[in-house]
Structures are given as structure tokens and as C-alpha cells.
């Protein structure tokens, strides 16, 4: 005997909880959680561990909600790219509206809890970051301009700022600097990836820099942003917001980042047989770079508090 389940709602027939979890882009979330936590730990002041955990949870859930909304909007584009075609929506594992509702529920819930438990300034910036990623980047900029990733990079730059504001309750120059560091880091990080997956973006009509301006211009811009990033990461040290542990680490890490970017920026692809090793190396290093840079900010704070 066979029984047909009720077909009255849009309950996804095949979606497992893992599919919903995959909608939140857990790998991207790792960096969001880490930078948010570093902002929180490096900030002057103290936040109760329960509230600190809540703040980080809200940042993570908010980022997950924005990622789900991004995948809801871009399901058709994702289906056309090798890198993204196995995501839950293009793979046909769930109804599109489920992803949308899931995204709105996570985003709204994260902002509400952040506001009630931590403060409404942190909640407002969290809401802005979700709007920035889900609307300004995904809907507006990404399909329209090759500068999409430059301005859209702001979305990923909010977490340390939110973490910092969760502790202090107000915006000062330092959280803005943390925002700017990730903002400036995003183009070389993402364009390194776009250089070795550019055929996919071209296929689905997304005007990524290598597709529109060409590979050479993209390589030059990678080098340009890396050159701007190095002095920017040293500003907290120069202004006395961070000590030598951070400053010297930022200098060493930044010089390495600049060297790898110069390698990518000044070379030319040798054609179809090019394995794009320098670009892949830069992409991998850029992730490590950001992790270590923010970790050093926290280490510097710990060292300073022991020295005081």
C-alpha cells in the first residue's frame, strides 16, 4: 500500500536539516564568527560571557540569514556555475520559498535578539549588514557592475565592527578601521578566486572584473588594493589603538600579502594550460592572512592587559 502525503503546503519534500544548514554558507560563517569574536575581544571593556556568546551567535545567524537570502535570489545563477550547482536550491533539494522564509526568519530573529540582549546600535548595524549583503550586493550591484565586489565587500566587513560595538555601545575610529581593513582585503581575496573560476562567471552573465575589464586590469587592481591594505592595517598601531605585537605582525603579514599580490598582479596567464597556481596561492593565503591579523589584534590586547 502507498500513502501520499498531503500536498497542501510548500513543505519541501526532500530537504534535510543539513540542506538548511548549507543555505547559511557555514564556511563563510567561520570567518564572520572569527572576525566578530576578535572585534569583541579586542574592544576595551567587558561583556558578560553569556551576552558575548549571544552577540556572536546573532552575528553568525544574521550572516546565515543573509546567505540564505542570497541563495534564494541567485538560485538560477547558482545552477549555471560548477562551483555552486550543488547548493540545495539548484540541486532541487528544497522549495525556493522555503529558503526565502528561512533567510528572513534567521535575519529578523538575529536582529531582534541582538537588540533585546545587547543593544539597538549593534542590532541596527547587524540589520544594515544583512541588508547590505542581501540587497545592495546580491540584488543591486552584483548583476550590474564589475565593482560589485568592492562595494559589496562592505557586507563582510561589518562583523568585527558589530563585535566591538556590542562591548562599547558606541562607534569610534577603531571599529571603523577594522571595517576598512576587511573592505580593502575583499577585492584581492575575491578577484584571486574570480581569476581561476572566471569562465563560470562569464557563463552566467555576472560582470566580475576579469570578465568585463579583462584579466590584466584585474591583476593590476589586485596589486593596487594589496598596496593600500598594507598601510591601512598599520594605522591602528600608528594611532596607538594597538601595540607592537599587532603592528609588527600586520607588517610581516602585509608584506607577504603584497609579495603574493605582486606575483599575481605582474604576471600574465599563459593560456588554457595555465594552472593558476599563484592566484590559488594568493586566495588561500588571503584567508590565512585575515585570520592571523585579527588573532594578533586579540593577542596584542591580552598582552597589553597583562602589562598594565
Amino acid at each position, binding site marked *: 500500500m*502507498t*500513502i*501520499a*502525503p498531503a*500536498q497542501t503546503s510548500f513543505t*519541501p*519534500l*526532500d*530537504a*534535510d*536539516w543539513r540542506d*538548511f544548514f548549507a543555505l547559511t554558507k557555514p564556511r563563510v560563517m567561520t570567518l564572520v564568527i572569527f572576525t566578530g569574536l576578535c572585534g569583541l575581544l579586542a574592544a576595551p571593556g567587558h561583556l*558578560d560571557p*553569556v*551576552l558575548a556568546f*549571544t552577540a556572536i*551567535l546573532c552575528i553568525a545567524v544574521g550572516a546565515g540569514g543573509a546567505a540564505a537570502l542570497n541563495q534564494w535570489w541567485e538560485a538560477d545563477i547558482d545552477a549555471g556555475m560548477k562551483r555552486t550547482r550543488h547548493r540545495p536550491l539548484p540541486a*532541487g*533539494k*528544497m*522549495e*525556493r520559498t522555503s529558503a526565502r522564509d528561512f533567510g528572513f526568519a534567521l535575519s529578523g530573529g538575529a536582529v531582534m535578539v541582538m537588540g533585546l*540582549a545587547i543593544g539597538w546600535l549593534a542590532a541596527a548595524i547587524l540589520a544594515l549588514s544583512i541588508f547590505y549583503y542581501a540587497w545592495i550586493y546580491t540584488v543591486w550591484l552584483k548583476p550590474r557592475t564589475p565593482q560589485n565586489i568592492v562595494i559589496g565587500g562592505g557586507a563582510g566587513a561589518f562583523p568585527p565592527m558589530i563585535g566591538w560595538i556590542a562591548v562599547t555601545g558606541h562607534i569610534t575610529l577603531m571599529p571603523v578601521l577594522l571595517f576598512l581593513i576587511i573592505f580593502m582585503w575583499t577585492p584581492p581575496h575575491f578577484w584571486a578566486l574570480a581569476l581561476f573560476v572566471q569562465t563560470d562567471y562569464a557563463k552566467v552573465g555576472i560582470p566580475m572584473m576579469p570578465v568585463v575589464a579583462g584579466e590584466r586590469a584585474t591583476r593590476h587592481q589586485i596589486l593596487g588594493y594589496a598596496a593600500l591594505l598594507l598601510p591601512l592595517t598599520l594605522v591602528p598601531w600608528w594611532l596607538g589603538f594597538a601595540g607592537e605585537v599587532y603592528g609588527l605582525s600586520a607588517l610581516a603579514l602585509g608584506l607577504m600579502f603584497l609579495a603574493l599580490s605582486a606575483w599575481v598582479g605582474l604576471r600574465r596567464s599563459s593560456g588554457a594550460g595555465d594552472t593558476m597556481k599563484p592566484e590559488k596561492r594568493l586566495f588561500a593565503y588571503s584567508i590565512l592572512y585575515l585570520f592571523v591579523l585579527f588573532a594578533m589584534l586579540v593577542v596584542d590586547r591580552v598582552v597589553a592587559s597583562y602589562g598594565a
Partner: protein
Amino acid sequence: MTDFRSQPLSPAELAAFRARQKSRSRALAVVLLALVVLFFAITIVKIRNQSAMRAAASHPAASASPLAEGK
């Protein structure tokens, strides 16, 4: 996209459907339980912080007072 079939499901499909439904329900139960614990903990922390602030407001100079120091 998911195919919302009008045809009845085979026993194997139905079993897989039920298994996924159960896994989603369990995951949701875990999330709701975790939220209950989290909200309870937040409430306790908020009450404790407010009590501490009230105590500080009602005895503003208690710790800094020379009398308090000399007692």
C-alpha cells in the same frame, strides 16, 4: 526544483520522506530547546546586572567614602 508529485509515493520514497521530516523536526526541537536555555541565561544575566546597578546607585559613595575606608 522539488517535484511536488500528485502520484502516490512508493514505500521506499515514503520512508525517505518520513526520515527527512523526522530529522528536520528533531533539529528544530534542539534549536528551540537551545533558545529556551539561552533566553533564560540572558534573563538571569540582565537581572543580575540591573541588581548590581541599583545597588551601586543606592550606595554611590560607599566604597570611595573615607568613613567606609576607616571603619
